[in-house]
């Protein structure tokens, strides 16, 4: 039986610029849906406005990824100059599919094989991956799993799971013991419903996005759902 998840809400729009720390330095992700003007304004505010001090200091390697957008040479120059004005920035990468963005996520090797994570995802741990993820173990409260594809938990899902993290609305979250704290598929959040004052606690179920929002169903129905789509 399908259980619709009652309490749901949308994530805010993606910011024009997000900054990530990587092993090598800083990675700037420029939102491909924003205008170049908007991005430039935001960058100036970040790097030369009030928060400029955060980015000062010793030399730091910087990678800039502008997604799948096409930039004219003029636009490239405009954005580049904002970074070049920062004296301690050493620009290492500039492009649409940079190595830095790539290395932000663990990778699946073949296109079809999922990432398999062995062991419990404990409080404070975060497993992030591109593609589908299989967790052999529990996801404890305070633990987090993020995947651009589906998430399957061979254990108890009691933490937070985010499937389709780059916008795939057909991604699903499945678990042997299903008692998640918070679910997110693409940009929709849902908190599992409470039944008789107790949080949802079921076995072998999965969450997906239907037309009415997020819903939970028995795992046996997952192949059907995939065939329909």
């Amino acid at each position, binding site marked *: 039986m399908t259980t619709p998840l009652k309490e749901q809400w949308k994530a805010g729009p993606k910011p024009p610029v997000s900054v990530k720390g990587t092993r090598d330095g800083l990675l700037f992700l420029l939102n491909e849906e924003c205008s170049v003007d908007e991005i430039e304004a935001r960058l100036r505010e970040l790097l030369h406005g009030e928060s400029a001090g955060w980015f000062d200091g010793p030399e730091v390697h910087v990678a800039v990824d502008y997604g799948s957008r096409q930039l004219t040479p003029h636009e490239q120059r405009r954005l580049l100059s904002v970074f070049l004005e920062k004296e301690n920035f050493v620009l290492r990468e500039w492009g649409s599919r940079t190595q830095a963005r790539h290395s932000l996520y663990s990778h699946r090797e073949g296109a079809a094989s999922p990432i398999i994570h062995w*062991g*419990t995802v*404990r*409080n*404070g*741990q975060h497993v992030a991956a591109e593609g589908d993820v299989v967790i052999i*173990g*529990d996801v*404890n*409260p*305070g633990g987090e799993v993020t995947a651009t594809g589906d998430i399957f938990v061979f254990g*108890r899902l*009691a933490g937070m799971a985010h499937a389709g993290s780059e916008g795939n609305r057909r991604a699903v979250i499945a678990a042997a013991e299903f008692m998640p704290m918070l679910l997110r598929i693409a940009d929709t959040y849902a908190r599992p419903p409470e039944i008789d004052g107790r949080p949802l606690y079921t076995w072998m179920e999965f969450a997906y996005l239907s037309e009415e929002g997020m819903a939970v169903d028995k795992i046996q129905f997952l192949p059907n759902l995939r065939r329909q789509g």
Partner: protein
Amino acid sequence: MGSSIVITSGKGGVGKTTSTANIGTALALLGKSVCLVDTDIGLRNLDVIMGLENRVIYDIVDVSNGECRLEQALIRDKRFENLALLPASQTKDKTALTADAVKRIVGELKQQFDYVFIDCPAGIEHGFKVAVAGADRAIVVTTPEVAAVRDADRVIGLLEAERLHSPKLIINRIRPRMVKQGDMLDIDEVVQILAIDLIGIVPDDEVIISQANKGEPAVVRPDSRAAMAYRDIARRILGESVPLMSLEEKTGFWQRMRRLMGGRA
């Protein structure tokens, strides 16, 4: 060459220091040579619980700075001939101790003792990293409370990151009656969440507090259930297989009567 065991929990007040003192003393009573190391700089308690506060002259920070020899800082417990304590510093800054220094000191202690127990400060910052640096194994202490279990879970993850895999678990301060009424997490629930081996369960016991105030570890008391639990843990550390104690309380007629009247049994 002995082995070093860090006792940690994440959350404060769950019984790290009490467990260190009692397990260490129990092992000393079983004939092993034991050294207790307090790494809670600035909030040292282990010497107080052991009743050795008035014998602290040098401390672990002095040893790490080379202001005294390790031997000079060690306090030999006169009641238990195999037991020694390396106290923490009360006045120096938390950052006075480094991971390398602790590794070196614990390495030296392992040469002369069978077991070195490291009492870790609460939290997961500098003090935790320093305490964990010298350890071969870890014991995580928790209580059957949701917050303590969450923190224990976090700490187990951090221990794995420090290459201390499969730590052992102590569930401390269990109140059987509350568990029975469903007001307290039971042992199975805690073990299921944390997914590590249980090395002991310790019932809540007032003797722990009165003995700590006296400066004498509770394990010397033959009548206390918590003492019994700690002695069992010590034997499990030695490799014996000891069944978990039953938490069923024996309730006599008068205790039931008293409870009916609203008093505590």
